[in-house]
């Protein structure tokens, strides 16, 4: 693999990257050799890259060694039920907590060592909004801007107003944060991430607690941010909330990254089953097994199996050839939601 600047993320290997052969390993040695500060992004075109990133709290493994690969320019949905390690991962990415193990790079810069250099290029909302209740929205943003040692104080008022305008809070700029509604608080937190142009925006559950209207607005905002070429890393426990805006997804379950890839790849996984309607299901099951299909299950006048790489036409032909009366044959596409639940587990599957 040769170093590709910019956003050539299409060629990056995706799919399940747990254990064993890790495609992300390929770029690892080269990264160590070049000075981090001169690169705008990772040579592999990754805005976020982690290897074996893990965090242990006491005897509980909150994040169990994950290999994130977020292509530059993508909108990456970081999904998983509550308690699956999403926020802990985000806190590690931003240098708030120290990983127990593993390495991580943000925009090609090693974290947390390069935090001061890279974090000004990253906007973030971590685990809900948190501001000074006695200050106005505007004063709160001014406080954050004053904290940024790379921000120009002369342009601060204009940038603060622009950020407030972008999230539709300009009218409430002078109102105390205490008096903001939950939706307004959430939007102020997003505005804090937009105080200056960013190359990467990390949003942790940005739609949490918002009504459907607010959720739509946040989605539109994310689309807008992404349209500027900014990489967006957005976490959610609801696939439906981010499905429409994401190009890539990573799915967490109990501290592990159980899936990572493009949305198409996730959808691709759903075409993996074939359903045969027949009066002689046992006979059909034998044929399917004979074809090497796995996970064959027989129900009343129905047989389903993992179709794998086999073409449906071939399966149909073999069934007919074997004298199975085929009443119907289909490749049902599971909804993304079903897939998501299949990946993350039903119910309260909380780690620890």
């Amino acid at each position, binding site marked *: 693999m040769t170093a590709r600047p910019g956003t050539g993320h299409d060629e990056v290997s995706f799919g399940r990257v747990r254990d064993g052969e890790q495609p992300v390993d390929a770029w690892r040695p080269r990264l160590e050799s070049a*000075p981090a*500060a*001169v690169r705008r992004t990772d040579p592999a075109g990754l805005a976020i890259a982690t290897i074996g990133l893990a965090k242990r709290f006491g005897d509980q493994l909150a994040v169990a060694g994950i290999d994130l690969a977020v292509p530059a320019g993508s909108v990456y949905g970081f999904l998983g039920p509550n308690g699956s390690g999403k926020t802990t991962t985000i*806190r590690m990415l*931003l*240098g*708030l*907590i*120290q990983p127990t193990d593993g390495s991580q790079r943000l925009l090609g810069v090693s974290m947390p060592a*390069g*935090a*001061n*250099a*890279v*974090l*000004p*290029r*990253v906007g*973030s909302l*971590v*685990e*809900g909004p*948190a*501001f*000074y*209740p*006695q*200050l106005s929205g505007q004063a709160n943003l*001014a*406080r*954050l801007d*004053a*904290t*940024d*040692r*790379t*921000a*120009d*104080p002369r*342009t601060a008022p204009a940038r603060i107003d622009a950020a407030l305008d972008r999230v539709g809070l300009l009218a409430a700029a002078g109102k105390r944060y205490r008096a903001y509604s939950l939706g307004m608080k959430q939007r102020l*937190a997003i505005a*804090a991430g937009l105080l*200056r*142009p*960013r*190359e990467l925006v990390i949003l942790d559950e940005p739609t949490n607690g918002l009504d459907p209207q607010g959720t739509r607005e946040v989605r539109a905002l994310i689309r807008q941010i992404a349209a500027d070429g900014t990489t967006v890393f957005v976490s959610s426990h609801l696939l439906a909330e981010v499905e429409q805006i994401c190009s890539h997804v990573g799915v967490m379950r109990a501290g592990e990254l159980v899936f990572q890839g493009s949305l198409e790849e996730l959808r691709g996984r759903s075409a993996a089953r074939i359903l045969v309607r027949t009066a002689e299901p046992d006979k059909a099951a034998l044929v399917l097994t004979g074809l090497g299909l796995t996970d064959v299950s027989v129900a009343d006048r129905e047989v389903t199996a993992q179709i794998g790489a086999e073409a449906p036409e071939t399966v149909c032909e073999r069934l007919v050839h074997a004298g199975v009366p085929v009443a119907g044959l289909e490749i049902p596409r599971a909804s993304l939601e079903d897939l998501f639940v299949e990946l993350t587990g039903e119910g309260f599957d909380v780690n620890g």
Partner: protein
Amino acid sequence: MSTADVTGRTLRGGAVEPLAAARHWFRLLRSELALVFLRRRTIALLAVLAAVPVLLGVVLKVSPGGGGGGGGNTLAFLNQVTGNGVFLAFLALVVESALILPLAVAVVSGDSIAGEAGRGTLRYLLTVPAGRTRLLGIKFAATVVFCACACLMIAAVGAVVGVILFPVGPVTLLSGDSVPLAEGLLRLLFVALYLAAAMAALGAIGLAISTLTEHTVGAMAAILVIAVASQVADSVSQIAVIHPYLPTHFWLSFDAMLRVPVAWPDLLHGLLSFAVYVVIFGSVAWARFTTADVTS
């Protein structure tokens, strides 16, 4: 692209020119001071601190000669106040340094990191990024400014009220010598600054405690307990051997400033003690804060 345009002064690798770094440091300090001093709680604390010399003056005016209680130091000043109004300022500093001033310092320093952590704003400051060492420095600087403001304000209010209520003239020092009023006021200024240094040392202890928790009230209580317990221990003669190492032991050594010649060794000993406390607890705070996981 954007980053360079916005920052202008950012060098390769994110390093910033020293001048710009200083300018940004003061920008954040200004923001921090506004946050501390515009809080209703701080304003109320300062009002209480300012009310004490007023009350003391009125009480002494109304019932002259009725001075009771207090240690040797307090008594020495008490008897002088009615003779010279300037001594009301010294008296107020001594009286307030026992409890009210440490309480105010405990509130401000205990809130410094714990308050941000409890509110959740700490994670937003750190992801800006504020820089942990830099933020800690700013928090301590703001505490020091508060200590200085509080002590100078007590001295100023005490002097003004004293001048209004009592006769004023050449200042008779504790050693019996008399110095002109202007020199007396200058010595008052140094006394206030010395006590501010003492409070800053307590502020350093407070900062360290504040990095250990996200519960502001707990941090404040712990700081106050340390200040009070230290003063109690300082009055138990059986453990005199540890007295010089107590954080509060040198707080009232400022009466050395009220002698001719000034007892410099006492003052320097005190300042050294404060400096050591700032270094030790500053290091504790730094070691803790720069490595702690921010999960609030």
